[in-house]
């Protein structure tokens, strides 16, 4: 059976002589599943996100063993733009995910890179904004929005690439209660739309939308039983 996202004996360390950050991780994400991964700071959660989204080994260097498979294809044999159309990632800090003076420009950036025709880009912008409920902010500067709204714009920008898998790398850690609630609602909507979602979190309060929870401890993934 081919899973949307799968890892087989995935191990990683930043340099040959440093400790293993990830140690033989075997993970399967099913279609339409919300999988949460929890762990303490420094446990390797973000590193795992980078491996799953192809940033490691394609952008960041290090020693990686095992396989990361997106619909059966190995990430190390793909290029990042191809991965970007299949796996979208929302990072922790909304400030470093926003580059343009208007929300519309921000959302257009991804489809423009994929050489999507102008008319379809317009449709994707509308759809992306509708999914996160930010239609009213289309012509505004994203830099004047709240942290939660910025994160929603970052998410909408990823959604315009139409990925089947979404990774949230502690995307709720820098936003207020209202922003968190909105993002969780969007996650549930995306789940209904058949997207597979991986939420990496350290705050247990944000896990109520998850179907399955795993804990990353000393480089290994285990079922979460209420303790880090």
């Amino acid at each position, binding site marked *: 059976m081919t899973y949307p996202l799968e890892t087989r004996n995935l191990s990683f360390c930043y340099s040959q002589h440093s400790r293993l950050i990830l140690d033989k991780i075997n993970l399967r994400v099913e279609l339409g599943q919300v999988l949460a991964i929890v762990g303490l700071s420094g446990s390797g959660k973000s590193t795992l996100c980078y491996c799953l*989204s192809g*940033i490691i080994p394609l*952008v*960041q260097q290090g020693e990686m063993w095992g396989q990361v498979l997106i619909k059966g294809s190995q990430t190390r044999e793909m*290029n*990042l*733009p*191809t991965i*970007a*159309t299949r796996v*979208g*990632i929302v*990072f922790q*800090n909304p*400030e*470093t*995910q926003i*580059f*343009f*003076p*208007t929300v*519309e*420009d921000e959302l*257009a*950036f*991804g*489809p*423009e*890179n*994929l*050489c*999507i*025709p*102008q*008319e379809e*880009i*317009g*449709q994707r*912008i*509308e759809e992306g904004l509708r999914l996160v409920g930010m239609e009213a902010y289309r*012509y505004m500067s994203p830099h004047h929005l709240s942290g939660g709204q910025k994160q929603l714009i*970052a998410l909408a*920008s*990823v959604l315009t*690439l139409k990925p089947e898998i979404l990774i949230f790398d502690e995307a709720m850690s820098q936003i207020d209660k209202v922003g968190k609630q909105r993002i969780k609602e969007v996650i549930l909507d995306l789940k209904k739309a058949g997207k597979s979602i991986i939420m990496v979190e350290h705050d247990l309060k944000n896990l109520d939308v998850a179907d399955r929870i795993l804990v990353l401890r000393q480089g290994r993934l285990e079922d979460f039983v209420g303790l880090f």
Partner: protein
Amino acid sequence: MQTSSSTQTIEENELDPRSKLCIVFALSSVAVFVQKIWLLALILMLGMVLTYLLGENLHLFKRFGRIIWLFVGIAVIQSIFTPEGIPLIAIGKIRLLTVGGLEKGVCFLLRIMAIIVPASIMISTGTREIIQGLVQWKVPYEIAFMVSLAIRFLPLLSEEIKDTFIAIQLRGIELDKIPLGKRLRMYSYLFMPVLSGVILKARELSTAMETRAFRAFPRRTSYRVLKLQNQDYLVMGMSLCFVIVVLTINFYYKGGF
């Protein structure tokens, strides 16, 4: 499709960013070559008028208000160290200020201002429009985005510096009250954390761009398309004529004016 035409093309009465770039380039480049004071003053005045007419309030000029005194200082020093022409102030045989020196100092000041003021024209133009203008001028999009990122990077840098200074003051160090020597030494200690913080942020920014398929193909489409109108051709033509006329005056009438 429900897209506002105003967002995809520049509004009808507004100049295309490429026209604005031509004006800035014309005024700034002639200001570098021109040697005559009256011509420099004319270029500066023209720059101020155009900046005003294009709806800018000389913000950049005001922002440079603090450092303009630095340029005034340099101009004074330059005039002191250029002992040409009739002496205006002299101590014995040492000529402190001469007509030639004063001319050079004023020239320097006017030149700096004539370069800075026209740059204000670009302030209200969005970075995305500037990128699109450059791309439609066949500048490789990677380079155009590099320019845009450099502009985006400046607030990140200033934010990082501000955060570091606030963190220090929150630890009970009053920067205003410590002696200059100690303060300078402290700034040198801060340099590395600020730099590493900025590099990390830059890395996050570039990773975010890459994960959104940047550089997927040698070309990319654009949702926002710029279209040159008659007024833009007129402005570009006039800018070219202006450069030719000013440089001709400057080179052929060396002795006169």
